């Protein structure tokens, strides 16, 4: 008697579309996914342990290497937590600069998302264009702090350097060109029928499921839940700016894509307002050379491009953190992978993986 049986397929850690070194153990029935289990840790560097042996200032570069496509947001989150722990007041100007850079980095990160989603769907050209445009943001950062990927620009107490007029020009020019870039993506990808067919109605994640699984960031908002820390627990100078939080309806791949594309325009809105309203003043607060936060414990979250980045810092009063634990949004968001893949085809797995948008540096920590 002929019967079919399921088989195991190990997708990754060396695979063209796992965004790094994620391994997904798929149980397949033909091409249909019966079960999928993410296996991570191939990029585990023990950052939390390394941080325990370093001073608070020395920890900062490690945060660059967590989510390496949006290092600014990680710097931001870490500094925000340490400042809260050590009760340092940040000058208003530094707050504005931080917001500008974090939002620019959010745009860069979302461009990477669009590009990698495109290449996972097979549109190689769709990858090149966002990556090309992202390069302009990296140029701005390079001009600003001398690094393209690992900035350490946002420092404890403020930021590293002031904006020069050249950088302001670069940012302004970028913002002026952004609508035409988005038009280009929309013409090439968003409007493409095959692209829409691949994304619409696949890998559904309902709002309730997303909420219960602790999904945060654009993925949660794509499922229709309005939760954005920039609004719901406003920090830094975000409450000074007008912007809206794009929401999805169905929580399918399409919504996750569209929400991120819309977020790019919203971020641009914030940057424009912040650039116009930069107050005068210092760019750093007075921070002691050796920072010894008082004995205590803090958990602080900010909104990264992938969701809620949280730092739990335990201080014993010395110059080094006693324990740091990082809530990495990609890591938690990956819990949804099985829901997103089950019952769909192998071709949908890579798309689902892409719309979760995990950065393995962050997942594996």
């Amino acid at each position, binding site marked *: 008697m002929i019967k079919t049986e399921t088989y195991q397929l190990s997708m990754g850690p060396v695979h063209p579309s796992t965004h790094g070194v994620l391994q997904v153990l798929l149980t397949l029935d033909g091409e249909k996914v019966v079960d999928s289990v993410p296996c991570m840790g191939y990029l585990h560097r023990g950052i939390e342990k390394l941080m325990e042996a370093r001073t608070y200032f020395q920890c900062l570069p490690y945060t660059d290497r967590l989510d390496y496509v949006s290092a600014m947001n990680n710097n931001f989150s870490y500094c925000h937590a340490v400042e809260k722990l050590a009760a340092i007041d940040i000058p208003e100007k530094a707050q504005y600069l931080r917001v500008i850079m974090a939002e620019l980095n959010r745009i860069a990160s979302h461009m990477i998302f669009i590009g990698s989603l495109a290449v996972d769907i*097979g549109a190689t050209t769709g990858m*090149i264009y966002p990556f090309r445009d992202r390069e302009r943001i990296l140029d701005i950062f390079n001009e600003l702090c001398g690094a393209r990927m690992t900035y350490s620009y946002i420092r404890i107490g403020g930021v590293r350097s002031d904006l020069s007029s050249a950088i302001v020009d670069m940012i302004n020019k970028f913002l002026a060109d952004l609508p035409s870039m988005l038009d280009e993506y929309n013409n090439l990808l968003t409007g493409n029928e095959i692209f829409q067919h691949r994304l619409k109605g696949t890998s559904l994640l309902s709002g309730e499921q997303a909420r219960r699984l602790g999904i945060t960031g654009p993925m949660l908002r794509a499922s229709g839940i309005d939760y954005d820390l920039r609004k719901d627990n406003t920090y830094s100078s975000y409450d000074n700016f007008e912007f809206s939080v794009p929401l999805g309806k169905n929580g399918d791949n399409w919504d996750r894509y569209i929400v991120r594309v819309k977020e790019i325009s919203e971020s641009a809105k914030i940057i424009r307002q912040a650039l116009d309203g930069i107050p005068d003043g210092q760019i750093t607060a007075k921070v002691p050379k050796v920072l010894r936060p008082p004995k205590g414990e803090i958990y602080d979250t900010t909104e990264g491009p992938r969701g809620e980045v949280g730092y739990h810092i335990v201080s014993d009063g010395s110059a080094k953190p006693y324990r740091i634990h990082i809530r990495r949004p990609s890591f938690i968001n990956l819990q949804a992978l099985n829901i997103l893949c089950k019952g769909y085809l192998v071709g949908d797995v890579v798309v689902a993986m892409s719309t979760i948008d995990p950065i393995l540096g962050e997942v594996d920590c």
Partner: protein
Amino acid sequence: MHEGLLVNLTVFLTRIAEFIFGNIFIAQLFIVLLEIVVIFAVISLAVIIQVYMERRICGLIQDRFGPNRVGPFGLLQTVADMIKLMSKEDIVPAKAEKLLWGITPMLLFIPAALVYAVFPFDNGVIFADIGIGIFFVIAVMSQGVLLFLLGGYASENKYSFMGAMRAVAQMLSSEIPIAFSILAIVMMTGSLRMSDIVSAQSGIWFIAVQPLAFIIFIIAMLMETNRTPFDLVEGEAEIIAGPFTEYSGMRWALFFLAEYTNLLAAAILTVTLFLGGWQGPFLPGISWFILKVFAVIFVFMWIRWTFPRTRIDQMMALSWKVLLPLALFNIMATGIGIYIYKWIY
């Protein structure tokens, strides 16, 4: 119509050979062997040109340069790549069915090259102007899939096997719309012979008479040649490289060669069936032929570097639920059209 330059050349060479060998039969045999060598040389050259073309066009579309370092305008890049591939270590997977695995890339080239026997390159320049020409093309072209299946099976790799299975499903889905779209043309010419089909287009190209068949044919041909948006057999984001996952170096290069040979064959077939073959004003037939073929190849490449990939079920749905009914409808419409045409005249 003038007899093509190449025909005269063949006749001339046959005379010389007859003079040397002193026997017409051996002379003709020699000429046939020479022709085979020539066609292989032409295919190889065309593949090199296509690879270069693909990379430059891709660069153009993607706002970058493409290869431009090796030789003038990077023309020798493909040659350099070929040398690199030949000098690579031959890696055989430990668990593979060694014999089957080894012969697959070699065999793959046979059906790919065989179809060239019936293509009319110019007026009278055709290796075998057989009466079932187009039928032969359809029959032989689909043989390639057997070797994809063989290679995927023999690799003992799940990705390869999935790719092989997809190749079979895709071939079945693409062959039938192709056959039915061609049938409309055969109905109009009343002959399966390739030269008849070309000469039937001396007045008007079939693309103008059979636009629906042309669209169906182009889409199905994209499936047949495994190119984006239907490159599911390779589907690099999903199944790495499908049946060629385990092949490297020269063996992989043979897959590559076969792929571009198929692409060229698809373009030639499109030109022959819909774009008037070698026919055109002023220039000699062979130059019109080359021009048209590369124009079609350009369109194929343009499509490849613009569109995303479909999913396997979407591809099958498109083929069976859209293309096939449309092709059948087209046949019926063509039949009625022919009947009315005959009735009027």
